[in-house]
């Protein structure tokens, strides 16, 4: 009798738990508008992972990024003083000197509800040109791209993604 009661109670607990799990389970969404809200996933650093440059001489490396489909980020030179520009910050490393970073010009973008207002943005793939000089050896170029992403009707908070490139100077 005791065993039977234990089985009964156990069964009820299991059922109640599974019912609660079903209740809390997120419902599927039609249209799959899933990725759009993730500021961290708005921009991706594509490549390079490793570059070879001549040692002790001015060199340039191209850093490739991609903005997720349906999104844009402000260019390095936004049209409004309040908008947050795309910026690259790099960590200073001994033997590796980043002298400048060139950002591409933005493309013009007119928001859906205000066609007169033009924004300067990056969409799709864009490339930054980093000018550098390095001592012979292997160096790790680390930094972060800060950006602020929007879609046609809404904006996400500013975010930074890390970049990491191994620079081999010979």
């Amino acid at each position, binding site marked *: 009798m005791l065993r*039977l009661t234990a*089985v*009964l109670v156990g*069964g*009820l607990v299991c*059922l*109640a738990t*599974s*019912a609660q799990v*079903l*209740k809390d389970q997120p*419902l599927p*969404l*039609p*249209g799959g*508008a*899933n990725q*759009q*809200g993730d*500021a961290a996933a708005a921009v991706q650093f594509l490549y390079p992972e490793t570059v070879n440059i001549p040692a002790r001489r001015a060199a340039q490396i191209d850093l490739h990024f991609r903005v997720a489909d349906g999104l844009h980020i402000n260019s390095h030179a936004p049209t*409004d003083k*309040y*908008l*947050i520009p795309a910026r690259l910050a790099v960590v200073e490393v001994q033997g590796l000197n980043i002298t400048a970073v060139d950002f591409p010009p933005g493309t013009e973008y007119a*928001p*859906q*509800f*205000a066609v007169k*207002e033009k*924004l300067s943005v990056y969409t799709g793939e864009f490339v930054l040109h980093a000018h550098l000089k390095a001592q012979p050896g292997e160096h790790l170029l680390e930094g972060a791209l800060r950006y*602020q992403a*929007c*879609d*046609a*009707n*809404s*904006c*996400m*908070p*500013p975010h930074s993604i890390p970049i990491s490139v191994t620079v081999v100077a010979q």
Partner: protein
Amino acid sequence: MKRNQWVIVVVLAAFALMVWSGYANYKRRKQYAQRQVQGAVAPENANNQSVQQDVAADEGLPDLRGKRAPEFSLRTVEGKKLSLSDYKGKAVLINFWATWCAPCKIEMPWLVALRSQYAPQGFEILGVSEDDADTPRSKLAKFGQEQGLNYPLLVGDDAISRKYGGVEFLPTSYFVGRDGKIVAETAGLVSKDEVEASIKKALAAGGK
């Protein structure tokens, strides 16, 4: 009762619970599907609004409609303390915005006009800034002046964002009825007509 009879009772009880659980889940999913359909038949930009609602739901923005608006107490950009409860009996639009949000800037002239139009009926807008905590109040105040805003601008914090579901998208708006309950919510820019319709709904909710 014999042991066999006990076993039958247990099996039947378990079966009944499973049926109930399945039905409850089916009912909930059916209600959800109906809500999605309702969201897709709005008068303007139907597809767009539907996407906005989907995005809001996907980002964990809770459906606060029908629930009491979470209370908060914040400082205005001028430093004055202000609480939602100060507006008891009024219809309130809680509008989350930021200086860096271009769509927010687009809707601000609409909000100014709608505030002027409906304030005599007991309507107010509370603009809650989602700028970084280290943004000087003076910068927010200057922005408000440049936009000609005629409603209080509050300096938001993490606590209010959490209370209102995280506020991952800007602009995000909650329309609170006179009874203190949320009657509508939007994530992302919607048309002026939709904003006005939600204001009317908030004014109508809870009586005078």
